[in-house]
């Protein structure tokens, strides 16, 4: 193949893409849809349930204050600290629950694997940025909230190429 021919062929393969729909995800307007409600773990079988590893959700009615999540995080991110809560639960005599610092968390989800009481899961919420460092520290009360999220865009593939949504 001659040099000019090769260059024209290369240009042509690029120019063809002017007619192809764009693949880029327009992020703040569009948000990717994930499988399930976030990463969860079944302590009976010892196997997790697939989902995005975003912000945690803490079920106060299950948490016993056993500190296993905090122990699991030692040596990884040291993001989990146990704090006193003004709540009385039968199973949580010490009234302590995890507080998570998202400035440190690496979202590995090993704390979820460590929880034997179905109390700590992860959610699809990944937009955690804030203007201050202290706002990144989520108290047990903040962790109990279910995130409000609308994520609906998926990769669609047809004859004309792939697009987001």
């Amino acid at each position, binding site marked *: *193949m001659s*040099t000019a021919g*090769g*260059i024209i*062929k*290369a240009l*042509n*393969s*690029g120019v063809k893409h002017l007619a192809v729909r764009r*693949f*880029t*995800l327009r992020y703040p307007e569009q948000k*990717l849809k*994930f*499988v*399930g409600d*976030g*990463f969860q*773990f079944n302590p009976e*079988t*010892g*196997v*997790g*349930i*697939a*989902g*995005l*590893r975003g912000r945690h959700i803490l079920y106060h009615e299950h948490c016993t204050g056993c500190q296993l999540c905090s122990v*699991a995080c*030692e*040596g*990884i*991110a040291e993001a989990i600290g146990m704090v006193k809560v003004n709540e009385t639960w039968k199973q949580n005599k010490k009234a302590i629950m995890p507080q998570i610092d998202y400035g440190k968390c*690496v*979202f*590995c*989800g*090993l704390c979820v*694997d460590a929880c034997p009481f179905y109390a700590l899961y*992860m959610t699809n919420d990944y937009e955690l940025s804030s203007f201050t460092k202290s706002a990144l520290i989520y108290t047990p009360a903040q962790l109990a909230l279910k995130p409000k999220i609308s994520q609906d865009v998926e*990769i669609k*593939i047809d004859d004309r190429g*792939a697009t987001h949504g």
Partner: protein
Amino acid sequence: MTTPLPPGIQLEKVDDRIMTLNVGPQHPGSGHMRLIIKVDGDYIVSCDPDPGYVHRGEEKMAEYRNYVQNIPHLERPVIHDSCNILYPYCLAVEELLGIEVPERAKYIRVIASELNRCVYTLYWLAIYGIFLGHSTMFMWPAGDRELFIDLLEAMSGARVTHAYLVPGGIRNDLPANFEERCLRQVDYFEKRLKEYQAIFYKNPLLISRTEGTGILSRTDAIRLGTTGSVLRASGVDFDLRKKEPYDVYENLDFETVVRKEGDSYARSYIPYLEMFESCRIIKDAIRKMPKSGSVRTKLKPNPKGGNDEVYKRVESGRGSLGYYIVSNNRPEPYRVKISVGSFRNLICMPYLLKGELLGNMPSVYWGLNYWPVEADR
């Protein structure tokens, strides 16, 4: 008369014609490393690679954490290839602790690591493209990489740093309908990959810049101890997936890609061709995988390793990647040594660049499939 120098110190004799150039240490490509290059006009006289700017002490850190807590930090050196850097660690720890891995988990691990290899190779290719001033070749692989990141995100829950492989299997089973989604996206990607040929690999501009530059002969490649795509580009048929098959690679249908030229072009072409093989492996593994079953063997809390040592290696995106782990009856390993492909390939840089044009330096450097962070560990 000049004053004599203190004992033990010598001044470097500098030729008038020779100029020393520092390429780096701030990101000559990706990651911090420095190339000290001496040039005579436009020709490189000598090259002295100077790695070590991103040393993180991974090996020492591993001595203070137990076998599960080591997972997140050990995948940090190559976040784009995190399944492959954890793979030999998991294999080694499984042998140390005497754990059997369920059959389905073995297949899923292979799928995850092949998807991850594609993610890494596409990222590498994107940087290779922009290194040579081909910005379309930056955009296309960076966009198509999203297909695999999407699949890995569905599998493991994270875009990069998946922490998906653990000693004993994998963290979670595949989500529903993953097989269909994976096959659909891999099929589309194969079609897309063929388009790279015309715009990049058959492009006369790329060929003129890379063909015949930085030639590494077969004997030199073996003598210098290179691995991975660099070795295969010099005509040596060596792939650990074929030669020392781990997990289920022996049941899967794929071929090793070998080229004889040993130049920059061959070194850039091999990872590209291997992506087709990766797609073949993924499709084959999905076909042969047991449709249901356990995916993880339960570990005891804080498992102890016994008095033993073990070495396991796998084929990563950058060549052979091995873990040597010594244990002394404690929950933490006594010593972890990571042997990475990038560091081995770096050694041929002075040989390849000697007498080369300075303009060919980027293609030779990045063609070595060198990842600074992994090399420094």
